[in-house]
């Protein structure tokens, strides 16, 4: 896209949307854009796994991953063949989940770990103890928290979309 730069989260959102698109005539073009997006995510991965907002290393300095960016990137890579980028990022995210209490990041973390078949029941219990939906002012956060709670009922929107 002209006059834009490629950051991790918008790329992940775009890959998710393209992978779940149906009935598009230009499937070759869609496939090409997905591959470009996936390559970009692998290129930007942080040395310890996971993703920051953009580059994983700046001026030779490794950046720390962000939980939400990592979770979203992983969800967009759900149908990709297993590889060390995904494995190391899942490892990092599992560790980060232990100390994450902010609803937005925590909910995305649960959705991503669950989509990859990792245990999240205890995490979901903790989410319910730290989040009072009545105190969440932001619609986006409320939506992703609701999706994470829905996972507890065996309903992970991302896994379902991937399997269909």
């Amino acid at each position: 896209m002209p006059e834009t730069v490629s950051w991790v989260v918008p790329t992940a959102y775009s890959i998710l949307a393209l992978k779940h698109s149906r009935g598009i005539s230009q499937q070759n073009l869609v496939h090409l854009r997905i591959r470009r997006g996936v390559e970009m995510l692998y290129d930007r991965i942080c040395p310890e796994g996971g993703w920051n907002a953009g580059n994983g290393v700046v001026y030779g300095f490794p950046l720390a991953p962000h939980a939400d960016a990592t979770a979203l990137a992983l969800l967009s890579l759900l149908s990709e063949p297993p590889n060390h980028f995904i494995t190391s990022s899942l490892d990092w995210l599992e560790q980060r989940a232990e100390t994450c209490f902010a609803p937005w990041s925590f909910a995305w973390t649960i959705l991503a770990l669950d989509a990859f078949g990792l245990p999240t029941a205890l995490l979901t219990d903790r989410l319910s103890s730290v989040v009072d939906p009545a105190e969440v002012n932001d619609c986006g956060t409320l939506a992703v928290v609701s999706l994470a709670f829905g996972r507890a009922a065996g309903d992970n929107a991302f896994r379902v979309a991937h399997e269909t």
Partner: protein
Amino acid sequence: MKLDRRTFLTASLGLAAGTSTTALLNRPKYHVTRRQPRSRVAILGAESYSHKLESILQYGLGLFHLDVRGKTVLLKPNLVDYISGNHINTHPLLVSAAVQCFRRLGAKSVLVGEGPGHQRDTELVLLESAFSEALRQVKAPFVDLNRDELAITPLLAGYTGMKRLWLPRTVLEADFVVSMPKVKTHHWSGVTLSMKNMFGVVPGAKYGWPKNILHWKGIQESILDLCATVPVHFVIADAIVAMEGNGPLNGHPRPLNRIVLADDPVAADATCARLMGFDPTRITHIRIGAQFLGNASIERIDQIAEAVCAPANPFEVVPEFQPLRVKGSAQRDS
């Protein structure tokens, strides 16, 4: 497309006087003049982050005889991200001290607002940097400017070429905006001080993270347009532990043991730059800002507390910004 840092720097690093970029920036493109004949700056000693900050700040604010009675005061700290051990953000104790001081001065309400530019999860930054607890203790409301209600706003300068921006209502409706930067070097803009801090009022929900449109249009240009459009009435800069090197996130802590107060953001930033051992006239947004937003020249700034004392060793910077550093103690202002 991989973001090319040099694309940013070509526009943002106005070091080579006479280049076409600098020449373009030097052409007046503002529709408002905020520069007063003289500006006041107070550099105050503060050894550490402690509850003594409130009395230091109260004393410092008293020097300015501010009248904020009945006004809505918006404190705009610099919250970018949280990385354990890194001095990235304005310290929460300084912000909570400012809340108490402005209440004592008779403000109708004191809000704290910020839209972090790097981390999308504002609540995570608040929680992990201990801001939530500090603000809870003084019962100060926080507004996430990344997700606030917006209003389309004509820009009062034209350095970016943009005509308007969507800006948060909380900012537009505040009577008295206080920029509270962390004094840091910045690998794309040289420094991040009270003027660059205003990037945080641009809503991420509309323009993305890290405020993509501003980076694309040019950091120095965007700073000028923003500060022309959203007046900064006062500055309280956290220079107790500043940051040098690869800022704004991954630099090294550099204690200056100071807070800097000013009634003019350009004067504040020029003074902070001098405290960092930089020549402020080599920083594009300060140099151009001094044409219409405030005063950068020593001759136009009244230092009403401590004198400016440039460090023997200027702050470390990334290679592109080495020309900012003034070697030795004999700084001359143009």
